[in-house]
Structures are given as structure tokens and as C-alpha cells.
């Protein structure tokens, strides 16, 4: 019967596979339990080392050098007769010690970009989180109808491509753009959004807030929904007013989520790049150039200054880390 033949063929194939497998097992050196474990987790460490650890370490390394162009020649080579390979020099470097760091102190544009970033951060993050919290509270309240529709609409900007939405902001806030048209309709003088230092920064604040408020609102809303209803009932019985319920139940219960949102937003805004790059180009006269934008320009625009850019990056990461740690220390669980 044909089925029997097929089944015989199948068994024969299976037996061959088994003998092959046995042979393979015998030939390969046996590994201990822990060796197997290390082998299995090694892909992560290889990828981590190659794409995360090496760039980090190399950035710190670079920050002590002056970059003088793409390297030629080789860093070192291995010659084992038939096997020969060489590691080429990545860059032509001149050791400068802490030179990059000391010159930062006297770099006006560095301080300008630090100031710009802090200024935007100090206005944008409180406004955005306040707004996100207010929206989350409103959506969490019983009386609001069409919650799903509002929730989706408010969260939608998160899905916008950063360059695309920045471009739309650029068009809207153009001197002859739609916003100024609306202002003229209600009889307000057009505002020089891009040419005024004050308004350029506010435009950036507005854009970032538009993009990220919904995202934070969703996180806060999720946090609000985990607060047990009975706590509010207990507070009601205890004689709490609406404000007292917010003050004594909502805020303390939401604290971990709120802290998460604050830290995340602070880091996010500190890393601001695409919006000022597209909308204001860092102008007018560097009034909106952010620290990351400055790093980018040092590193890749004009004559590349990788050593200095790396030093800037190290300082930037240090500042962000310190701010985050301070926030977590202050707001963290007691």
C-alpha cells in the first residue's frame, strides 16, 4: 500500500536523523550546566556590548580627544600566518585631556542652549502635566459622556510623526499662517512667531505640549482608574469635600504614576531636538537652540567636532541623570 510505503520512508528518514543527531551529540564537546546557561544568554550581551556599551564607552573616550578627521592606517593587526586581520583606526584623534570640558565653560552657545532647554522645560513640563492631569480627571469623572471618543481624540497626537507635525506647526505659525489669520479675525495684531525670541520659545512649548499631553493623560488616566472607589466613599463618609478627596486620596494614590510621568517628561523635553530643528531652526539668533540640537550641530554640521560633541553629550547625560535622581528622591515612596 502506498501509505505503508510512505510511512516506511518516513521512519527511515527519522532513523537517519536520529543517528545523525547522536553522532553530533557525541562529537561536540559536552558543556556544563552553567556553560549552557551562559551560551544561551550570550546573544543579549553581544548585542548590548556592540550597540550600547561600546558607543557609550567610546563617547566617553572621545570626549578626551580632539577629532581631526577620519582615521587611516590601522590601530593594530593580528598576523598568525594564514590568518591575518587588522582593526582600522576609526578616527584621527589628538588627546586633549579635560580640554573639551574646560572649553565648555567658556562656550557661550553651550550656556545659551542649556538656558533655552531649561527655559522650555520649566514652562512646558508643568503646563503639560497639569493639563494632562486635568483632562484625565475630567475623563475619569462619572458625568462626562462619550469618554471613548474624547480619550482617543486627545491621545491621537502621539501617533503623529515628529517631523511631519513639526512641519505643520511651522506652516500654522508662519507669519502669514493660519494662526495669525485667526488672530486677525478677532482683531489681534499678527504675532511674529518665528522672529520674536519670546514667541518662538512659546511655539516650541505649544508644539511639544500638543504632541505629548495625550500620551501623559493616558498614563495618568490608567493610574486614576486603579484607585479603589471605596477610598472615595470612605473619604465621603469621613466628611471630605471634593477638593479634600483630591488632596487626600487622589494625589497620594497617584503619586507613583505622577512621578513616573514627571521624570519621563523631563527627560523627554530635555532631549528636545526635532521640533526646534524643524520649526525654528534654533532661531531667532539661537533663542531656541536646545542642547541636543547643539550637540548635533557640533558633531555633524560643518567641520565635525566629535570630541567636543562627545564631551557635551557626557555632560548632558550627567545633568539628566542628576535631575531624574533628584526627582525620584524627592517624590519617591517614603
Amino acid at each position: 500500500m502506498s501509505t505503508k510505503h510512505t510511512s516506511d520512508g518516513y521512519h527511515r528518514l527519522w532513523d537517519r536523523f536520529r543517528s545523525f543527531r547522536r553522532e553530533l551529540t557525541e562529537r561536540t564537546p559536552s558543556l556544563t550546566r552553567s556553560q549552557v546557561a551562559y551560551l544561551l544568554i550570550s546573544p543579549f550581551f553581544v548585542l548590548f556590548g556592540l550597540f550600547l556599551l561600546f558607543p557609550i564607552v567610546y563617547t566617553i573616550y572621545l570626549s578626551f580627544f580632539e577629532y581631526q578627521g577620519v582615521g587611516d592606517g590601522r590601530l593594530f593587526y593580528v598576523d598568525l600566518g594564514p590568518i591575518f586581520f587588522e582593526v582600522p583606526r576609526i578616527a584621527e584623534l589628538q588627546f586633549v585631556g579635560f580640554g573639551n570640558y574646560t572649553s565648555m565653560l567658556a562656550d557661550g552657545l553651550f550656556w545659551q542652549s542649556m538656558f533655552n532647554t531649561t527655559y522650555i522645560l520649566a514652562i512646558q513640563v508643568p503646563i503639560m502635566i497639569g493639563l494632562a492631569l486635568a483632562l484625565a480627571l475630567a475623563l475619569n469623572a462619572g458625568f462626562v459622556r462619550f469618554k471613548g471618543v474624547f480619550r482617543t481624540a486627545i491621545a491621537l497626537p502621539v501617533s503623529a510623526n515628529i517631523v511631519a507635525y513639526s512641519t505643520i506647526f511651522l506652516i500654522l505659525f508662519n507669519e502669514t499662517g493660519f494662526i495669525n489669520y485667526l488672530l486677525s479675525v478677532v482683531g489681534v495684531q499678527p504675532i511674529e512667531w518665528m522672529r520674536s525670541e519670546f514667541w518662538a520659545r512659546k511655539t516650541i512649548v505649544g508644539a511639544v505640549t500638543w504632541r505629548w499631553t495625550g500620551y501623559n493623560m493616558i498614563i495618568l488616566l490608567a493610574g486614576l482608574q486603579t484607585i479603589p472607589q471605596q477610598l472615595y466613599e470612605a473619604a465621603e463618609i469621613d466628611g471630605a469635600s471634593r477638593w479634600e478627596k483630591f488632596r487626600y486620596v487622589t494625589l497620594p494614590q497617584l503619586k507613583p504614576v505622577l512621578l513616573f510621568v514627571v521624570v519621563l517628561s523631563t527627560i523627554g523635553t530635555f532631549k528636545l531636538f526635532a521640533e526646534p530643528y524643524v520649526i525654528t531652526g534654533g532661531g531667532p539668533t539661537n533663542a531656541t537652540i536646545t542642547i541636543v540640537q547643539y550637540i548635533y550641530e557640533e558633531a555633524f554640521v560643518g567641520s565635525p567636532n566629535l570630541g567636543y560633541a562627545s564631551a557635551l553629550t557626557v555632560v548632558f547625560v550627567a545633568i539628566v541623570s542628576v535631575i531624574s535622581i533628584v526627582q525620584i528622591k524627592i517624590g519617591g515612596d517614603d
Partner: protein
Amino acid sequence: MARIDITDLVKVYDSGDESIVAVEDLDLGVKDGEFLVLVGPSGCGKSTTLRCIAGLEDVTEGSIHFGDREVTDLRGSERDVAMVFQNYALYPHMTVRQNIGFGLKLSSSLPSAEIAERVESVAEMLGITPLLDDKPKELSGGQQQRVALGRAIVREPAVFLMDEPLSNLDAKLRAEMRTELQELQHDLDVTTVYVTHDQTEAMAMGDRIAVMNDGILQQVGPPEDVYRSPANEFVATFIGSPSINLLTAEVDGTTLSGPAGFTYELSNPEPVEGRSRVRVGVRPEDITLVKGGSNRATVSVVEPMGNENFCYMELGEHELTARIDPTLRPQAGEEVAFAFDESALYLFDVDTGEALKTKTDAVAAGIGTEAR
């Protein structure tokens, strides 16, 4: 302290086009200082009633008075009630001290030294002084329960409301707390409404119990009255453990004949006059196993409780339960004869479930009024 008067209370939940009547035309008075237990199966409206009294739910119709004060439209925070929740609802971020003192801090104008003093004394009364600076998550269920009680007691409210406060405790602790709670309520003399689905708890704790089913108040009365003279078949079934035995019997003059050859001769047929069928009820403790007799059933299981045995028997399709002497050990499959006194018999209307006859056996001397 206050009397509670609930008049024609109706609570309807509207969800879209569907409306659910949770409580229907409830009239209930709770005397000053009384411990009233609201009892019934899940979804009977007992918790809703309690929440209406607390001010956590709007009342659809009817009114609620505390003493002479109408509170129907007052917010919960303005009613001067304290409530103990089933899962305690302690504020997780506050210490025990803050939890207990929170209500006083918000709703009274007492100076903080006075509040601290009151919190201390309540904590001492409940034996939780060493826990005052702990957070709720560090406490056991029983300790959390005490904190929740403390939070209610410290307010010295007009009314105590308790929503199944013992149901999250294990059986032993529950029995202990039951006694303690009763003593506490007796000492404080605060009008208390206590909700439970556990009829044993209701019987044990209530000065009076109010039995609810399907949003309708079935009966209110002292526990023994409700047990001995239930208003209807539902109350008879719900109160008492193990449950009352019930079967449908045909009436023929003075003879009741039920399934599997069950017959009973009534000496007073007055309650069944003019009826062709009737529901017959007998409490498990009123059934005795006898030698010889016309009513026979087959033993299916005997559960030894130590002080008594529960004997489950089959009478045709029906299951009968008898509480028998622990020395009696009928075997499974054995056929036994059983009997009961007419004075212990309950009779209910077949359609409405209304009680036609309840226990008439004398309340034995020694537990009756004579003994007091």
C-alpha cells in the same frame, strides 16, 4: 445617637434603556441604640439600602430621617454617619493613627491635641495601640478590621453602618470579632445597621433582623421570631442552618400526602381548609428518627458534627435533613422511619409562599420570658 426612619424607599439604577429596581418600597424603622441586621442573599438590595442610608447612593423615591432630621438629600459627608466597609477601605498612604483621625480632622473643629487623644483612647479600646504608626499594608486582616472599626468609633457618629465587615476574616476570627463587635455596640449604644448575607451572623448579632429578597423587605423582627414565625417560605428557607425541609403535599381533609408515600395526619386542619395543595416545612432539628412508622426515607449521608449528627435522607426525589443525636449512626442506604410533631410544622401557600402555620410548640421554660 438617633432613630432611623426609612419611608417608602425606592432605588432604581438606570443603565441606558434598562432600569433595575434594587430596592422597592422599603419601610423600616431602627430604634435609637438598636443593632439591626439587614440580611438576604446576594443582590437582594441590602447593601444598596445601607448605601442609601450612608448617602453614597441617591434615593430614587422615599425619605430617610435620622431622628427628626431629614437626611434624604444630604451628602454622605453631612449625615454624621460612620461606615465600616467589607474590605476596610483604609487609606493605604496613611498610618493607622492618621487613618483613625482623618474623619475628625476633616469633619470636626477639634484641636489636633484633642484628636490625638481620642485616637489614642480608641486605639487602646481596640487593642491596637502598638500599631498606631504602621501603614495598613503591614497589618493582618484582623488588625485592619480593628483599624476600620476604630475609624468609625472615634467619630462618635449618630449612626454606625457596617457592610459585611467580618466576611474577609477567617472563621475563628470572625466568631471572635462578632462577639467583640456586639459588646462594643452595646457599650457605645450607637444605632447600628449591619449588612450581612450570613444568616448565622444575623441571628447571633441582631437585636432585630430585617430579611430582604429581590429588593423587597420580607420581614423584620427579633431573630427568634423570624426563625419561629417566618412571614413566608423565603424567610423560612433563608433563616436557619441547615435549611428547613420543604415539600409539596396534597391536602385531603385532614391528611397531607407528599412524594414517595409521605403522609401526615393533621389534628388541626384549619390552616389548610379549602386548599388542595400546600407546602410543608419541617426544621431539621424537629425531625426524629423513630422505630416503625409510615414515613420512611433512605439515608444518603451522615455528617458527624461531634455534638450532633446531620443525617441527609432521600424521600423520593426530595432531600431531607435531620439533626440527630450523635449516638445515632444510621448507615448510608439504610431505610429509616421519621416523625415530627404537628406543633413544629410549618405550612405555606403553594403559590404565594405566604405562611399559613408556623411553629406553635411552646418556647420551652428556661429560655422564655419566665426565666428572666
